[in-house]
């Protein structure tokens, strides 16, 4: 049997899924690391749903975190004031997110892509400020309590049977719920982009007029993508915060949103799985970069860094990077955009899946320009030699 690269991809997928399933015992059931893994999965859902909108329809929403918060606050308030059960409030929160997304989508998506970006960045910041100010309604800066889900005893017993360490600490069930949500939402988005809607998304992105001429309703298609991606963000937020127990408005600040975008772009925003892997990778990197263990001799040389916001902890033997770890990822985001527009992870996946590299717009234009230049030069210098491109390969531009 001939060896094919896709076997490597299958093997890696298997290892990844196994790692996903066995993560809690792999980190020795430490609550802290289970929480880190769970947060990584939460960000992975957000990044991949953001890339559903950005990578497939070319529209940029900077309010993804705001929609996440909107859904969570809606669910929390539905539980507190209306008296719904948590699972009912989850559905209610998702619907409210979708409704707000629908209104904003129809407002902005009739115009060029930049209008959605402009409006959502203003919406996100102002929504956060209002939530912070409405102390009576939302709890203000102290946050809103989100009561946990109640899992029926029969179901608990089933889980306990299959997962022996289910009761080790309360983070284990939370982690598994998040992992299942991650898997299901990724599967859903994958099916969506493989369906005819996915083709609509890309058609509208590549050429609006051509898609409209072929009968695709451009605005509705974009609104669909925007609403679906916002609802997934809301869903992820609600489930995540049911386990965390509290949401604070600072969860929605623009810095977090930038981080989601960095995750999606560095992973590869044209590829849902690339974006998700980027999120997991960056979240763990940030966790590690928070305090870098270094020998004390080296740390003593680095004391000057304290002037610019690092902190050197000689007792623990670590260098705490504080804000500077984010600076690194901001720089990486810009460089990725400039030099590797398909991201850093998704090209590897594409290569393993033996997909042909897509013809890009710039390459197409360059090829056209080259051909034109060749034709021009040949027509002028040597009409007889026309048709032999080797004589002048250098474009005149």
């Amino acid at each position, binding site marked *: 049997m001939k060896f094919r690269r896709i076997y490597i991809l299958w093997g890696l997928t298997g290892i990844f899924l196994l790692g996903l399933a066995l993560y809690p015992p792999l980190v020795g059931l430490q609550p802290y690391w289970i929480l880190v893994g769970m947060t990584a999965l939460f960000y992975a859902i957000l990044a991949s749903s953001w890339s559903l909108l*950005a990578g497939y329809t*070319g529209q*940029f929403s*900077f309010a993804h975190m705001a929609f996440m918060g909107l859904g969570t606050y809606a669910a929390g308030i539905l539980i507190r004031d209306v008296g719904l059960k948590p699972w009912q409030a989850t559905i209610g929160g998702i619907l409210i997110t979708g409704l707000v997304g629908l209104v904003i989508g129809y*407002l*902005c998506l*009739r*115009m*060029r*892509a*930049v*209008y959605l*970006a*402009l*409006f959502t*960045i*203003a*919406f996100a*910041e*102002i929504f956060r*400020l*209002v939530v*912070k*100010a*409405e102390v009576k309604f939302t709890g203000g800066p102290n946050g809103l309590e989100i009561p946990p889900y109640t899992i029926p005893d029969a179901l608990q017993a089933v889980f306990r049977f299959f997962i022996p360490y289910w009761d080790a600490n309360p983070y284990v069930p939370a982690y598994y719920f998040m992992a299942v949500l991650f898997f299901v939402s990724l599967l859903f988005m994958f099916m969506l982009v493989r369906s005819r809607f996915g083709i609509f998304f890309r058609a509208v992105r590549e050429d609006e007029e051509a898609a409209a001429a072929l009968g695709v309703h451009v605005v509705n298609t974009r609104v669909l993508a925007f609403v679906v991606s916002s609802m997934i963000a809301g869903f992820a937020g609600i489930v995540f915060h049911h386990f965390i127990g509290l949401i604070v408005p600072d969860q929605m*600040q*623009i*810095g977090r949103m*930038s*981080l989601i*975008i*960095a995750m999606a*772009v560095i992973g590869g925003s044209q590829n849902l799985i690339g974006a998700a892997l980027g999120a997991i990778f960056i979240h763990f990197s940030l966790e590690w970069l928070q305090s870098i263990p270094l020998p004390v001799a080296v740390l003593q040389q680095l004391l000057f860094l304290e002037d*610019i*916001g*690092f902190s050197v902890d000689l007792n623990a033997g670590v260098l705490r990077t*504080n*804000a*500077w770890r*984010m*600076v690194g990822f*901001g*720089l990486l*985001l*810009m460089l990725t*955009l*400039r030099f590797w*527009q398909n991201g850093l992870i998704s090209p590897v996946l594409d290569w393993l899946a033996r997909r042909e590299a897509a013809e*890009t*717009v*710039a390459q197409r*234009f*360059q090829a056209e320009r080259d051909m034109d230049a060749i034709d021009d030069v040949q027509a002028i210098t040597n009409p007889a030699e026309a048709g032999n491109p080797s004589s002048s390969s250098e474009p005149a531009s």
Partner: protein
Amino acid sequence: MWPIPDILLDINFFQITSSYIFRLILEGLLIGIIYSLMALGLTLIFSVLNIVSFAHGEFYMIGGYVVYVLLTRFKGMPGLVGIVVAALVTFLIGAVFERLFLQPMAKGKVDRPSEYAILVTFGLSFFLQFVLLGIMGPFPKKAPRFWSFPPIDLGVIRTTKATLFLGNIPLSGGRIFAAIIALLALGAMLWFMFRTWTGWALQAVSQDRNAAAVVGINPLTMNTLAFALGAMLAGLAGAVLVTVFSWVPWVGVPASAKSFVIIVLGGMGSIPGSLVGGLILGVVESLGTGLFPDPARAQAYRDVFGLIIFALVLWLKPTGLFGREL
């Protein structure tokens, strides 16, 4: 029946007098001039490069921090020097960024240029915010006041050191000072745009790149100049406001949101639009905040009025007041 919301019962109608309204409008115009200055920078960038800079608020933030650092490091330095240095620094950062990241786009080396422009300027804002967070720390800073009014008493107009009284209306001196500097900068900028060769070249490129290139204007140079000037205007706005507001690394986010509201309200790429839009936004915000029933929450709702204007413009007239095309 539905109960009357508390919020309506809270309005104290007796408090609303004509002089109170007048004061709110004056305050709105003062801050509106600075909004106009910022939005003019964004308009310049949009009309020449045809992109919206999402890092505009970060240039505003850097302009403020430069003045703050200079004033606290070198005591007794004239504040105007600080403002000029802030303008230079933001101009340089803008020029370098444009050369490194936006020029490849203008040369056609980047796929999907419009999407790239949104993301890369947003990436710059992310980067600058955290650089300044690393250097300056998260705690609010406030620059010392570096000027004071000469004592004047003309009956109607009286001054104390930091306040100007117009009749019995007190106006914060910091804002007046900022508005005066902003007016000077606006005037200089408009003079530059409409009365110098370079300004004409910028306008030519914004109208037709190819035609401008034919008559010997280098569009790439003009791109760099426009982006750097736009960044500088935002930096100036920050530099004059750092004595008025307290400064944190993410202070630019609401400021840039305001500029976005103004350019959409005035029409993307329209210079009169950004000037008028800034004043309108300033007055609407000031009136809305001043007449808001609950003073404790009024400041938080200051930005909401901008968002409402934004939504109304998008709904009713997406081209804006002076916009040419969609």
